[in-house]
C-alpha cells in the first residue's frame, strides 16, 4: 500500500485515494513528428528496476496531479513535487543522489 505526500493539499494519502498515471516528464509529439518520435511518446516507457519518476493524481482528494520519485525495487519514495514542470527539481535529484549515488534516468541524473 503506497502512501504518498500530495504536494498540492498536504495530505499523506494512501493509495486508495490516488490514481496512478504512469511515467512522468514525457514530451508530447503531435502532427509533424516522425513515426519513431510518436511511437516512443505513446508507448516507449522507462521501466527501470530502481529510480523512477511517475505521475499520480490525488483523485479521491484535492484532484490535483503531482509527480513522485520512487524506487520500483524497494518502493522507497525520494520525494513528491508539482506536476507543472518538465524535469525533476534539484532538491528531488539531490535527495535521490544522497540515497542512490550514480543513479541515471533518461537524460536526468
Amino acid at each position, binding site marked *: 500500500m503506497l502512501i504518498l505526500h500530495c504536494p498540492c493539499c498536504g495530505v499523506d494519502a494512501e493509495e486508495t485515494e490516488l490514481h496512478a498515471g504512469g511515467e512522468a516528464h514525457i514530451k508530447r509529439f503531435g502532427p509533424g513528428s516522425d513515426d519513431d518520435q510518436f511511437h516512443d511518446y505513446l508507448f516507449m516507457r522507462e*521501466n527501470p528496476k530502481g529510480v523512477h519518476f511517475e505521475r499520480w493524481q490525488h483523485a479521491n482528494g484535492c484532484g490535483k496531479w503531482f509527480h513522485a520519485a520512487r524506487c*520500483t525495487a524497494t518502493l522507497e519514495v525520494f520525494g513528491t513535487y508539482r506536476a507543472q514542470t518538465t524535469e525533476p527539481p534539484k532538491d528531488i535529484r539531490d535527495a535521490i543522489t544522497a540515497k542512490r549515488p550514480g543513479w541515471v534516468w533518461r537524460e536526468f541524473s
Partner: protein
Amino acid sequence: MKHYSAFAVAREALRSHTGWERAWRSPEPKKRYDVIIVGAGGHGLATAYYLGKNYGIQNVAIIEKGWLGGGNTGRNTTIIRSNYLQDPSAAIYEKSRSLYEHLSQDLNYNLMFSPRGVIMLAQTHHEVRGYQRTAHANALQGVPTEWIGPQRVKELVPIINLEGPRYPVLGGLWQERGGTARHDAVAWGYARACSAMGMDIIQKCEVTGVRQENGRVTGVDTTKGAIECEKLGIVVAGHSGQLAEMAGFRLPLEAVALQALVSEPIKPCMDVVVMANTVHGYMSQSDKGEMVIGGGTDGFNNYTQRGSFHHIEETVRALVETFPMISRLKMLRQWGGIVDMTGDRSPILSKTPLGNCFINGGWGTGGFKAIPGSGWGMAQLMATGHSPLTEAFSLDRFKEGRFIDESVAAGVAH
C-alpha cells in the same frame, strides 16, 4: 529418461522409491550452444522443447537466474482458455489449449490438465453483446465456445448468485474445453523432457550481458562465465526490459504486480472456472480443494512481487457477492508476481533490432495458458525466421498502429 507410469510407481514402491532418477540434470554450462534461451519459466522451456522436438535443434541451453518455474509459471491462477476476440490471440491461445489437451502424454508427465470448462459471466447488456460478438468470432476462428443463459450458468455453477442486487447474471460465454492445469508441473514436465533431449538447464545462473558483433548476437555473459550462441531467445517475463537493455534495445513494456490468493481447502463445490469481469474477479477450485482467486493488476511499476492489499479487497468482495457461500471461508495465502504489460496488453513475440536475438514477453496477466502455443510459435520463429502464430505480435505493430486489443469485448486478458 525413465518412463513414468502406474507400473513404474508400483515397481519403485517395492524398493522404497530408491530407484527414481533425477527429473532433469543440473549441468555446468558448455562453452557454446546453437541456441540459448534466457529464462527457464514455462515459455522458455516450451520454446526449447519445441526447438528440439519440431526442428531437431537440441544443442540448447536454458539459463535461469533462480530456479526453473520459479517466476510467474508458479504464481498464476492456472486458467487455460482460448475464447479471445481478435484473430491473432484466438490463434495462439487455441493452439496452446489444444496442445495442453495431450501434453501430459506428450511429456510423459501428468500436468493434471483439467478441461473443466470456463465461463465468462456477462453482468451488463454491454457485456452480453461483447461476449455474443466473441462467440461469433470464435466460431469462425475454430475456437469452440458457446453463449449460455443464466439457468445453464446456474447448472454449471450451483454456488453462483444469479440475482446479485447490483449485477444480475445475464448469461455467459462458455468454453467447455477450457480449464486448468497444475502450473508447476508444466515447467517440470517441459524441463524433464528438455533435459532428456540433452539440453542443459542451468539454474542459479544470471545473465549479466549480451555479446554482439556487427549487429548480431554472439553469446551472453553470465555469473557462470561467458557462453557463446548462434541464436538467443529472451523469455524472462517481468525482467524483459532489463535483458533488452543488455542487448541494446528498448521494449514498450512496463512491469507491474499481479496478485492472487487461495482459500483454505474445502470439498469440491465448483467444477468450472468462472470469470466475472464486470466486478473484476475470477475463481476456480484446485484439486487440493482451495478456491483459487485472482483479479486485476496493481497500477504502478513494481518489482517487489508484493501488491497492495486493496486490490485483494476489491477482488474478494466481488467474489463474495458473486458466490455468497465463500463469505465464511478464509483466505489462506496471498501473493504477487511481476508481469510486463504492453501498450495494447497483448504479448510480443518478435525479432528484435539485434540480429538473431528474439524476444518473447509482455504476456501481462495471460501467460500461463499460452505456454505451449507460445513455445511452439517462438520455436518456429527462431528456427525458420517466420511463424504465422507470432507474426501479428511483432514489435513494429505499435509504430503502425496495428494493435491487438482484447479489452474491447468486455474481456480481460487473464
